[in-house]
């Protein structure tokens, strides 16, 4: 029997799968949690939220005009090019979206958790990560220090692996990308191993 304090697992599975499919159907792009965090923090740093880029990419006439101007500037009046032997393949999936779209995506993760907690009546503002965690990691500043270190390790790992559980686990595995299978196996394998280790230590 499922724990009534959580939504059933299949609700989460349907929501996540639906989000991936809907984002692809509507925007032809893949979702990426760590990529979104990177994009938002970069936008906060350089102030470029991508609105100008989005406007141009959605205006086909302006886009083609800008492309032609750039081409003539780079190659001269008549670049010597042969007609392509085969039509260009359709655009490949990317994770590009204006930074504010990434911000909304990240905020909705919190909103989803909040809705679930409110609906099941389990909402409670609490900083505790559980008794097992506290027994090993301590509490207060020490615990916060461990969390910061953990966050840095996760950030380093996701950059090194070019993705996290969202990009690799949801989008990569569903597209049968070999690298994503390896990455996801590493994520979850490590998670399961650490869980057993904590269980063993406590």
């Amino acid at each position, binding site marked *: 029997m499922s724990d009534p304090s959580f939504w059933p697992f299949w609700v989460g599975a349907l929501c996540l799968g639906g989000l991936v499919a809907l984002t692809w159907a509507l925007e032809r792009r893949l979702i990426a949690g760590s990529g979104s965090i*990177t*994009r938002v923090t*970069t936008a906060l740093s*350089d102030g*470029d939220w*991508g609105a*100008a*880029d989005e406007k*141009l*990419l959605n205006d086909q006439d*302006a*886009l*083609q*005009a*800008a*492309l*032609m*101007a*750039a*081409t003539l*500037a*780079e*190659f001269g009046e008549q*670049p*010597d*090019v*042969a*007609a*392509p032997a085969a*039509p*260009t*393949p*359709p*655009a*490949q*999936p*990317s*994770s*590009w979206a204006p930074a504010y779209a990434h911000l909304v995506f990240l905020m909705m993760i919190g909103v989803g958790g909040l809705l679930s907690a409110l609906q099941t009546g389990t909402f409670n503002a609490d900083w505790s990560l559980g008794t097992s965690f506290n027994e090993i990691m301590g509490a207060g500043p020490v615990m916060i220090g461990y969390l910061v270190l953990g966050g840095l390790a996760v950030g380093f790992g996701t*950059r090194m692996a070019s993705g996290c559980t969202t990009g690799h686990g949801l989008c990569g595995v569903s597209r049968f990308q070999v690298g994503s299978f390896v990455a996801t196996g590493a994520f979850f394998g490590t998670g399961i191993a650490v869980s057993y280790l904590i269980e063993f230590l406590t």
Partner: protein
Amino acid sequence: MKEAAGSCTHMRGCEMYGLFGSQTLLEAWKERFCHGDYTKCQRYVRTLRGERVPATLLPNGMDLPSMGKS
């Protein structure tokens, strides 16, 4: 930087590569960068540096919105 052999390994997922197929004249970009010396492509260079690559950044380092204004 070493001369590139073959085609760019980042073509998949490159927003600009898809745009270069919309007109024959634009194929010049592909010939020079995507299928030529892609190590000179600023999109490729920035990716290797771990920097953000704007969707509208051209391989030569120019930004498309600025070209539209000229």
